[in-house]
C-alpha cells in the first residue's frame, strides 16, 4: 500500500483542475467577452479574432480541456495504483 498516497493524489487532482479552469476562464470570459473589442481589431483570416474566439475557438478549447483532464487523470491514477 506504500505507493497509494491518497493525499498527494488529491492535491495533484485539485491543482490540475485549478490550472484547467484558469484556461477555461481566460478563454471564455477573458478573451471572448472582456477583451473582445481590442481583439476584434486583429483579423483572423476572414473574421475578427475576438468574434471567432467567442463563436468557435472557445468551444474547441472547452472540448480539448475535458479530454486533457480525462487523459491526465488516467495517468495520475495509474501512477498511484488506483487503477492498474
Amino acid at each position, binding site marked *: 500500500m506504500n505507493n497509494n498516497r491518497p493525499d498527494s493524489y488529491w492535491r495533484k487532482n485539485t491543482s490540475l483542475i485549478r490550472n484547467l479552469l484558469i484556461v477555461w476562464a481566460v478563454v471564455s470570459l477573458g478573451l471572448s467577452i472582456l477583451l473582445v473589442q481590442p481583439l476584434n481589431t486583429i483579423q483572423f483570416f476572414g473574421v475578427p479574432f475576438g*468574434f471567432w474566439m467567442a*463563436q468557435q475557438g472557445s468551444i474547441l478549447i472547452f472540448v480539448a480541456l475535458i479530454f486533457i*483532464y480525462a487523459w491526465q487523470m488516467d495517468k495520475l491514477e495509474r501512477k498511484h495504483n*488506483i487503477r492498474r
Partner: protein
Amino acid sequence: MSVEFWTILFVGISFCLYLYIGWRSRVKDSKGFFVAGQGVPAIANGAATAADWMSAASFISMAGIISFIGYDGSIYLMGWTGGYVLLALLLAPYLRKFGKYTVPDFVGDRYYSQFARLVAVIAAIFVSLTYVAGQMQGVGIVLSRFLQVDLTRGVVIGMIIVGFFSVLGGMKGITWTQVTQYCILIVAYLIPACVISLQLTGNPIPQLGFAFSDIASNLNNVHQELGFAAYTEPFANKSMLDVLFITIALMVGTAGLPHVIVRFYTVKDARSARTSAAWALLFIAILYTTAPALSMFARYNIINTLNNQPVAQVQQLDWVKKWNKIDLLKFNDKNGDGILQLAPENQLNPQGQTVNEVDIHKDIIVLSTPEVAKLPPWVIALVAAGGLAAALSTASGLLLVISSSIAHDVYYRMINPNASEQKRVLVGRIMVGFALIVAGYFGINPPGFVAQVVAFAFGLAAASFFPVIVLGIFDKRTNKEGAIAGMLSGLIFTATYIIGVKFAGMPTWFFGISAEGIGTLGMLINLIVTTIVSRLTPPPPQEIQEMVENLRTPTIETTTEESLTPMH
C-alpha cells in the same frame, strides 16, 4: 416525390426505431429503470448526453437567434458548452463515485438532512417541468409544420412515442433511443449546413467556410449599409456586463441541470464519467460550431433574397409562400414602392413608422435552410425527423428526472424505505406516465410565459444545485446548516429578481443585469452563505467526512477487476 411523402417516411421509420429500441431495452429492476444498470459505455453515454442536452431550442431556434443578434448570440454558444467543463472537472466523476440514483440523493445524503433532500427534489421537479413543456410544444410545432397535423394531435403522437420507450425501458430505453436520436439529429443538421456552406463560400465544411472566406466582411458591409450594427460587432444588443453574467449563469446552470447530471450516473465508474463527458462535449460541439456558421450564412442569404427585391417576385418563391401562410414570414410594403426594404426595428421614417417591411420569425432560419439552398425534398424531410429527435430525446430525459424525483427521492427515500424492487419500478413507471400527461397538457396549452420561464430553469439550477454539490465534494467542512441556508438564499434571491423583472415591472436594479443573467449572482450568494454559515455551526459528523474522503478516491468497483489488480 413530394416533401410530405419523404417526411412521413423518415418520421415513420425513426418512430418505429424508437419503439423497437424501447421494446428491446425493457427493464424490471430499479437500477435498470433509474440508472440503466450503470453499465453504459462511455462513448454511448456521450452521444446520449448530447441528444439529452440538445433540445428543440438548440436544433431549431438557436441558429436563428444568433442570426439576428450576431456576436451577442455567443452567450448561448459558450454558455451551453462551457458548462460541460465545470461538469467534467468538478461534478461528474464524484457523483458517479457516490453511486446513487439522483441529484437529491446526493444532496440528502451528503447533508444528512431530509429537508435538504426535499428542497433539492422541489428544485429538480420545477426546473425539469418548465423545460419539458417547451419540448412537447416543439414536437407539436415540427409535426404541424411539416405534416400539417394539428398541434394537439402532434403533441399526443409525441407523448405516445416517448411514453412507450420510457415507461417500458426507463433510463435504459431512454439511453439507447437517445444514442439513435443523436445520430439522426446531427446528420439532419449537418447536411443542409454543408451544402449551403459550399454554395456560399466554396468550402463544404461550415466551420472552415465561416473563418476562411470573405462572407463575414461582406455581411458586415451589407448590415452597415442597411443601418444595422455590424454582424461581428460585440454588445450591440446587450452590455458587456450583461453578456458576462448571462454566459456564466448559462454555464453554471448547465452544469447544475439534473437531467444532464443523472446521465453520468449511468456509466461504469468515475473514469468512464470523465471520458464520457469529453465525448459528450465533442458531440455537442459538432452542432454548436456549425450553428454560428449556419446563422451567418442564413443571414446573408435572407438579406440577399429579400432586401431590395420586388414584392411580387419574392412572393413567387415556394418557401416564402409556405412560411408566409403560417405567419412566420410577413411582408408589409409600407411605402408602396413594390420593393422590400429591411431595416432595424428602431429606424423610423418621417411619419414615425418603422421602415422595416419584412418580419422574419427566428425559427424559420434553420427550418427553411434546405429550401433556400434548393436541396431535394428528402433533405427537408430529414430536418423534420432531426427536429423531432432533438425534442423527443430531451423530453424523455426530463421525464425520467421528474419520475425519479417522486418515485425514488420522495416515495422510496422519504415515505416507504421498505418498498420492494417491483413496487419501486412500478411507481417509477406510473410517475413517468403522470409527468408525461402534465408535460403534454402544457405542450398543448402553453402558458403565455413559457419563453420567460426558461430563464428560470438555468437561473435556479445555477443558484441552487451547483454550489452545494461542488462544496459538498471539495470542502469537507460544509455542513447541513450551511447547505440549506445557501440553497434557500440563492433560490429566493434569484426567483424574486426574475419574477420581479419579468412579471412585476421591477427595474433591473443590479447594474442592469437581465433576468437571464441574475443566476450568476444567486450562485455567488449561495456560495458565500453556505461557506459562512458552515463555519459558524458544528462540522458535519465523522461518517459524512469519511464519505467525502471516499468520494475523492476513485477505486475500481467490480470484483472481477479487483481480483485482477495485484494489491501492493
